């Protein structure tokens, strides 16, 4: 790149794109009012939006090349434009920074984002809000890029809130239907809880470090951690920041918004709720890895939350009938894996899984969107079946995504998931319990993934042939699928395990970022695995994936009988799992309904009696006073003149004698 200022165009291009698409939307509305067609302007929107993301992608690749050309320990490109806040000792610049970690995130966000933009051009065709959709989507990419590029925690928070806003707007995109709007609010409120925690964590970091520049914080952690009085606050701050991650990345206890977020259009689910936004929490932990690594207890909390979320998410996916719900709970579960890896200090492995997950889960969501599109908006897998003949391209790519998700040997998901499990196992102690949860979840993952494949694409055709005519999606939709399928299959080469005797590309690349955290963890002992143990774990992972994938596939290839059996014989179990362990129901019972009750009481009693009484009383007082005083206004010119005269005399008298 010519100058570091070009960095700014990576986020700014999508921002300009969003503004342009917004104008196109208004032009479309005006055209609809004019001649009722409104087609011409909105057709421009996908071109503008895709061009903006393509530009960002090009600049990101250029930045990546620039970075790779530098020596490993000097891989930072920074572009500061102006001083933002300067209050006392607190100094804050508006600046963007590209280091190995943000470079990886840049490529994922703009790369997968570009494919999903192209796909959306086909998927959203004919929607009245076509241009508006692309405006929101571009705005989201802008916010996400600000999130990964900002050098300070405040800049990151601006992006963090921006993606939350766009998520809200896009979940509720079809707000006329009612429930998407509610799902959007739920997502927003759940995120708000996490964001409050994030802010408290940031305040603690300001107090401890006197700065919010993340590289400065990372450099100062070792010093702060060695001071016992401050180390305690550091632990609290790290836990608060992690609380923010549980909101954004849908972990326990705040994960319940993500399944509801499926109310949004499917490309949104793919981009925001699978590939990019929900991984922001993982990014934050890796970005500030020394802060979290300073106290092993924090790492254990992160790992435990991750493992439990993985298990709850995985089990909740088993009996879902809505294809998007399966993928949503699967996403919750896979994000849990990433945090499980983070908890064991496997920062690079978590990012590795983040990248492969962006490929295969983005692919699966887009594939599901293609199925939903071809089935005329049917999402219930019990009403699908046998689609492999009707949608061969979608089927082939979906198969690649499913194989990667379930961790079938040699696919991308296999390597990234097994790497996380290997690190967790190697960490020893309590983490081996977490490893056990992880391996059980891996089995469940393989099972529900192939159940989904069998129900959707195999077996008898269970849909109504008179009304539904499944058809393959147009090229603008299946080409992105094909690209993502290739990435899902071969993405594993980014990080081959040590037994292959090839350098772990991603781990080497991220080394400068993860080194401080690893150094802190190494003070509590290092963990390595022998090659034999690694082979054994890889073998175990392969066997489990293959066995449970086969089980899941064979149980459902014949039809939906097994689901109906379970619903009949164990209704409580099915209900428990479909309702995601009833956690959401408990939130409603303990928090939402009491809050609504308080709101109702306030509305009826406090508002209607106290507040309305005050307002009506003030009005009544004025009316009564007026009624008393109106005898003065008798309509006779002379009495008015007399009052004026008397007033003048009074004033003159006051002026002269008082």
């Amino acid at each position, binding site marked *: 790149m010519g100058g570091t200022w070009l960095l700014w165009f990576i986020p700014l291009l999508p921002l300009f794109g969003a503004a342009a698409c917004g104008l196109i939307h208004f032009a479309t509305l005006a055209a609809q009012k004019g001649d009722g067609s409104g087609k011409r302007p909105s057709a421009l929107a996908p071109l503008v939006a895709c061009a903006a993301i393509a530009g960002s992608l090009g600049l990101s690749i250029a930045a990546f090349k620039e970075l790779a050309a530098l020596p490993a320990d000097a891989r930072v490109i920074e572009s500061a434009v102006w001083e933002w806040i300067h209050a006392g000792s607190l100094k804050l610049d508006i600046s963007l920074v590209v280091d190995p970690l943000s470079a990886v995130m840049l490529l994922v966000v703009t790369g997968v984002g570009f494919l999903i933009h192209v796909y959306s051009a086909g998927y959203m065709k004919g929607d009245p809000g076509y241009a508006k959709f692309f405006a929101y989507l571009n705005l989201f990419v802008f916010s996400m890029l600000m999130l990964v590029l900002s050098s300070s925690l405040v800049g990151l928070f601006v992006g963090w809130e921006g993606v939350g806003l766009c998520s809200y707007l896009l979940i509720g995109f079809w707000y006329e239907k009612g429930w998407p709007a509610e799902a959007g609010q739920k997502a927003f409120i759940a995120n708000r809880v996490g964001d409050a925690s994030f802010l408290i964590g940031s305040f603690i970091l300001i107090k401890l470090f006197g700065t919010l520049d993340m590289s400065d914080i990372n450099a100062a952690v070792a010093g702060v951690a060695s001071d016992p009085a401050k180390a305690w606050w550091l632990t609290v701050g790290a836990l608060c920041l992690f609380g923010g991650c549980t909101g954004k990345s849908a972990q326990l206890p705040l994960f319940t918004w993500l399944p509801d977020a499926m109310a949004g259009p499917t490309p949104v689910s793919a981009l925001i709720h699978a590939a990019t936004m929900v991984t922001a929490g993982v990014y934050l932990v890796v970005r500030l890895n020394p802060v979290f690594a300073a106290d092993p207890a924090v790492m254990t909390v992160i790992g435990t939350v991750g493992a439990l979320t993985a298990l709850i998410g995985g089990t909740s996916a088993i009996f879902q009938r809505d294809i998007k719900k399966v993928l949503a709970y699967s996403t919750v579960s896979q994000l849990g894996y990433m945090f499980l890896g983070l908890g064991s200090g496997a920062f690079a492995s978590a990012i590795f899984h983040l990248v492969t997950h962006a490929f295969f889960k983005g692919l699966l969501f887009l594939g599901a969107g293609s199925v939903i599109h071809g089935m005329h908006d049917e999402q219930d897998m019990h009403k699908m079946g046998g689609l492999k003949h009707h949608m061969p391209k979608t089927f082939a790519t979906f198969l690649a995504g499913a194989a990667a998700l379930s961790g079938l040997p040699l696919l991308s998901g296999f390597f990234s998931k097994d790497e996380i499990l290997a690190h967790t196992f190697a960490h020893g102690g309590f983490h081996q319990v977490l490893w056990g949860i992880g391996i059980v979840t891996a089995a469940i993952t393989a099972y529900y993934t192939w159940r989904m494949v069998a129900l959707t694409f195999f077996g008898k055709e269970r849909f109504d042939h008179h009304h539904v005519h499944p058809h393959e999606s147009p090229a603008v939709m299946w080409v992105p699928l094909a690209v993502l399928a290739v990435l899902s299959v071969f993405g594993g080469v980014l990080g081959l395990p040590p037994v292959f005797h090839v350098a772990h590309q991603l781990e080497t690349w991220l080394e400068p970022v993860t080194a401080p955290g690893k150094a802190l963890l190494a003070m509590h002992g290092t963990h390595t695995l022998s090659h034999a143990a690694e082979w054994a774990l890889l073998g175990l992972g392969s066997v489990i994936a293959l066995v449970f994938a086969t089980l899941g596939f064979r149980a459902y290839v014949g039809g939906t009988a097994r689901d109906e059996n379970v619903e009949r014989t164990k209704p409580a179990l099915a209900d428990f799992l479909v309702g995601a362990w009833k956690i959401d129901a408990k939130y409603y019972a303990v928090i939402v309904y009491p809050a609504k009750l308080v709101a109702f009481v306030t509305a009826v009693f406090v508002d209607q009696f106290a507040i309305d009484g005050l307002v009506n009383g003030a009005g009544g007082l004025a009316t009564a006073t007026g009624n008393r005083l109106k005898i*003065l206004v008798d309509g*006779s010119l002379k009495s008015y003149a*007399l009052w004026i005269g008397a007033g003048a005399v009074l004033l003159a008298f006051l002026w002269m004698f008082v």
Partner: protein
Amino acid sequence: MNVPSEHLLYLAAGLFAIGVLGFLIRRNVIVVLMCIELMLNAANLTFLAASRQHSTAQAANLDGPVFAIFVILVAACEAAVGLALIIALFRLKQSVEADSLSEMKG
């Protein structure tokens, strides 16, 4: 002959009092309007008296006469509008009695 300024002020006060009394007592709106003219001119006389009081042999104080000319201008406008209103009133009520106007009673 040199009339003292106080005498002018007494005259103005007298004229003004007559105007006010007429305004309050007389029922014919035309006479009421004339009383307003009387008050305005009493004010003019006060301006001129004050101006004369503040003038020296070398420099005349012109603030009072300028104000008086403004007041005459406004009085002319007021008379035009007031008489037009009275004509409209007469067409409406067939009378120019001030007491017949009490539609705005509260």
